[in-house]
Structures are given as C-alpha cells and as structure tokens.
C-alpha cells in the first residue's frame, strides 16, 4: 500500500492524541509525524479538556479504553466547547466484536477505528475528516 503524499495534499495540522499507553501514543505519533503533523499527547483523559483549549488541535484521537474516566462523557464535555465541524474526533475502539458503532457516533465522535489500527486506515480517516 502506498504512502499518501502528505506534503502536497495536506497542510500540517495540530493533532491531539489521548491514549494511556506509551506504546499507543508512540505509534500514533510515529504515523502522524511521518505525515508532517504536529502531535500533542494527553496521557490521561482528565487532561483532554485543558489541552483541547491550550493546544487548540485541528483533530483529536481518543482511545476508548482509557481507564478512570468515561470517554463518552468526556466527549460530551468536549462537544460543549467545540462543534464537530470545528473539531473532528476519532475514537479508537477495542476489538470489533465489543463495539457498537452507533453508540460511538451517538456519543459525539466523528469517526472510529478498530484496534489494531493500521497506518493506512488512520491516514484515510484523517484525510476525509480534514478535507478542506
């Protein structure tokens, strides 16, 4: 599968990544930086709202498996600050057999990806959401 030519088709964007695991964050950062984006990591969901204001991301990727906080409730709070048109949200969901896409969309997410995520799928998803 070919690499998307990010330098030509996309501007560099600010992307906020919320994932509790270092590996997960490192993978997302590696893919996104390869494509020329600026990445900010939120190590816990509680920091998400603050960073959403200070970092002012173009897009947020949120891992649904974060503990200690209801990711769905978090998204609802986020949605009170930013409208989906202004801040697309991608949910990273665990195995396909555990997730109801309808629930994810209803919670305010713009799109979702099932783990393990492939770089190709992530890029496609972002390019659709950040289409100028």
């Amino acid at each position, binding site marked *: *599968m070919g*690499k998307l030519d990010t330098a030509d088709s996309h501007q560099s964007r600010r992307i906020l990544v919320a994932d509790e*695991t270092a*590996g*997960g964050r*490192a*993978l997302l950062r*590696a*893919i996104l930086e*390869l494509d020329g984006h600026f990445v900010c990591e939120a190590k816990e969901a509680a920091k998400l709202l603050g960073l959403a204001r200070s970092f002012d991301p173009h897009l947020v990727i949120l891992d649904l*498996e974060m503990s200690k906080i209801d990711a769905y409730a978090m998204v609802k709070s986020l949605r009170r600050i930013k409208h989906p048109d202004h801040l697309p949200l991608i949910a990273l969901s*665990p*195995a*396909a*057999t555990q*997730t*109801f896409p309808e629930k994810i969309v209803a919670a305010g997410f713009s799109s979702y990806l099932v*783990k*393990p*995520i*492939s*770089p*190709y799928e992530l890029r496609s998803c972002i390019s659709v959401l950040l289409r100028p």
Partner: protein
Amino acid sequence: MTRPRTPPRTQLHGQTPLEPANWLAAIVESSDDAIIGKSLDGMITSWNKGAEQVFGYPSSEALGRPITMLIPSELWTEEEHILEQLRNGGRIDHFETTRIRKDGKKIAVSLSISPVFNSRGEVCGFAKIVRDVTERNRLIKQEETTLASTLAEHKFQELIEQAPDAILQVDSSGAIAIANRTAELLFGYSREELLSLNVDALVPQAARHKHQGYRDKFAAAGVTRPMGEGLNLHAQRKDGSLLPVEISLSPISSERGNQVIAVVRDVTERKKTEKQLRSLQESYMHELEARQEEAERLNTLKSEFMASISHELRTPLHTIIGFAELLAEDNEAPLDDKQKRFLHHIQADSEHLLGLINDVLDLSRIEAGGLRLATESVPLEKIISEAIHSISPFATERGVIVSVEQMPAQAKVSADPLRLRQILYNLLSNGVKFTERGGTVTVSATLHGDFVRITVADTGVGIAAEECSRIFDKFYQTGYTSSGTRQGTGLGLTICKQLVEMQGGKIWVESELRHGSRFHFTLPAP
C-alpha cells in the same frame, strides 16, 4: 377301699347299735361315690346308691350286666389295659377318664380300683370307686379362665400404666375417671388428685374457657381425632408451667355413658429438636446465601479481571502490529529481503496471537455469561456482503473465490449484528483456509418456517465423518489444513456454536473428505 373300722362304742340317742357288717354296708350305701364290685370277667356284682346317682342306672338294671356299658366304646382298649394291670395284682388310683351315663351323657370321673381276694388269697373280683369329677373339672377350668383373664387384665393395665403417653379417660362432665402413671409424671399430680380433677384443670388458663365447648363439640362429632393435628397445643402442670403436647381423642361408650380417652404426648423434646433443626436450616440457608453472594462477587471479579487482561494483553500487541505495519510500508530506509522476511514473521505471528487472545476472551465472556446480545432485525444480504468484504483480502491472497449463491429477497434474521458478522467471518475464514487455490466458498440463505438457514459451503479438503461431531469442541482442530496455512486457534467453531445457540439457532456441518464442507446454521426470522 378303706378298711372296715371298728364301730364306735358310743351309741346315738334312741337308736339301736349296728352289727359291724351292717356298718360297712351302710357306709358303702351312703357314699356319694359310686362303689361298684365287678367279677373277673367284667360283670357288675354290686352297685351302691352312689353308683345309681352317678350313672343313672338303678341297681336292678346294673347288677349282672357287663361293666363295659359304662364305658364309651372308644375307651374299651383303655379298659383292657386296666383289667390287665389288675389281674396282675396291681391297683389303679385316681385315674381320670370318661364314662357314660344311662342318658348317654359323658361324665368325667376319677377311678380307684383294687382287686378283691377270696379266703384263699386269690383275686376273685374288683372293687371300683368312681367319683364324678365333672363339676370339679368345670370349677377348675373356670378358675383357670378367671386367672388367665385376671392376668390378661393385669398385663393390659401394666401396658396402660407404662405407656409412654399420658392416658386419661374422661366422662362427659370432664371428670377424670382413669389416669395412668405417665399422666401423674406429666402433669405433676398424684393419681388421687387426678381422679378428683376436672380435665379442664390440665388445660392452660388462657384456653380453659373454650375447652368445655371443644369437649362438647368432640362428643357430638364422636370421631377419633389423630394426634398432633393442626394446632400448637399446650397442657398445664400442677405447678402452673406449660408443656407442648399432642392430643389424640377417641370416643367410647360404656355403662357410665359416653366417655373420651385422651392420649397426651409430651412433645417438648420433639419441639426442641424441630427448633434446632429449623435454626440449623436457617443457618444453612444463610451460609448458602453468603456463598451465593461470594460466588457472584467472584464472578464479577472474574469479569473485571477478564476485561483488564483483555486490555493488558491486546494493547501492547496492537502497538507491535501497528509498528510492524508502519515498518513494512518501507517509507524511509528501504528494507532488505532478510529484514522483510523477519518482519513478515513478526506480523503473521502477532496477528495470530491477537486472534487467539480475542477468541479466548470471547469464549471466556460467553461462558461467564458476560456477553450481552443486542438483538435486532438484521438485513441478511447487507451483513453477508460486509462479511465477504472483510474476508476478501485474505481470500484474494489465498486465490479462493468467495461469493453469494442464493439469497431470498429482503431476508432478515433476528440476531445481534456484531455476533452474526463474527459467525459469518469465522465460517468464511475457515472455508478460505481449508480450500485449495482456485476453489470457491459460497454463502446462501434459505427460509425454513420460522427460521432462516444460512450455509457456508466450500470446495476444500472436507472433514472426515468421524470428525464432524467433534469439530465444534473447544481446541479441536482437524489435521487437514492445506499446506502453508497457519492453524487457527481451535476456538472459532466453538465460539460460533455458542453464539448461534445463544441467539436461538443451531449449527451443524455436512462434509466428507476431499468433497468440501457445508456449514449450516439457523437463526430465527424476526
């Protein structure tokens, strides 16, 4: 025979003294016993008044007649023995036998016979004294009967006395007529006190006013009431204390009017045992509940553990798979062939491991009852094409064609779409895995009454008949994967079976070696 005595010297006033021989005759004559003389050949030679009374024959009818007329024919043999004994000089004393009277009536007699000697000392006949003992025997018998019945009565009384239950006989006014020993012990009154009491005194104060009414009602109904029926009855002792009892009442009629026999059983011990048993039962129930709660708590803990382990196992694997794929994109530094080969192994095995973890976790969740179904009416065609779409990269890679063969228009099933997709994906994946390059896997659906049957058929290696029944068992794997294909987890079909059955359907396979397999499963139509 008594010897003749010397006559008394004294004379009775106004009477002439008798000669000694006449004395003897007078004594014989006045005896109540029959005194009979008989000759050696058995003829009667003398017959006194007593004989007339005992046998009913006057002497005129007896003298010179054979003695056998007095003997019942069945006893003649016995008489022969007696005569035999006498001829040999023997005596018979108080021999009890039966004789027959003139009127044919048999009488019980006691015989004493002795030989009579002539002046030369030879036996010339026999003297026989016969006493009628019929009356005496009757009296003895009567006495025996009386004794036996007294004994029986005594035993019976003993039985009542020693009965484990208190026994009271009460007349219609409530007066106690009979009370046994156990009644004394049970109620704490002496026998005399009991026999002067009204039975109401043994009823607890609180129930006493009603008791008369109960007694009247019982007397009117006149039926035996079984012991311990219904109520928690109590009796009151002399000291006022109460004891739990069971009472059985039987009506009897006697010359003293209608009476009631009450059998009163002290059930203190039994009540105590019952109470112990109840408390034992209660504590057992509590323990059971506690264990149930503990089991539920452990089950919740297990579910939480499963969720946590699921996360902990998969998360690093997701990262490995993601990085491996990124590396495989070959973006910056190109990989040489060896590196590509190594990377391929990392990717293949981590994907396999992820599949295994997912299957194990799915099955654990299903078996722990932690899998919730979101059943809805699912359009079959859509979900089947989604499943085929998911499997197509793998099928393309394997050179196997996957297609829909037959599909009723607008067919729907009642199922959880996620789980239905999982079942289909598993079956399609198996089909592709076990089919040689150039083969086909087809999906079809048919309506069968209230159910829809979905079939995934392949042209692959097939399954031996003896394996068809075991193929849904946990970790069971056939040895017939086509070369180069990695084995699955051995859980895919088990999960399919569980998921199908949870949704109200069933799953089975038709196959034979080298002739492909047809997996069928049913789901209810909505």
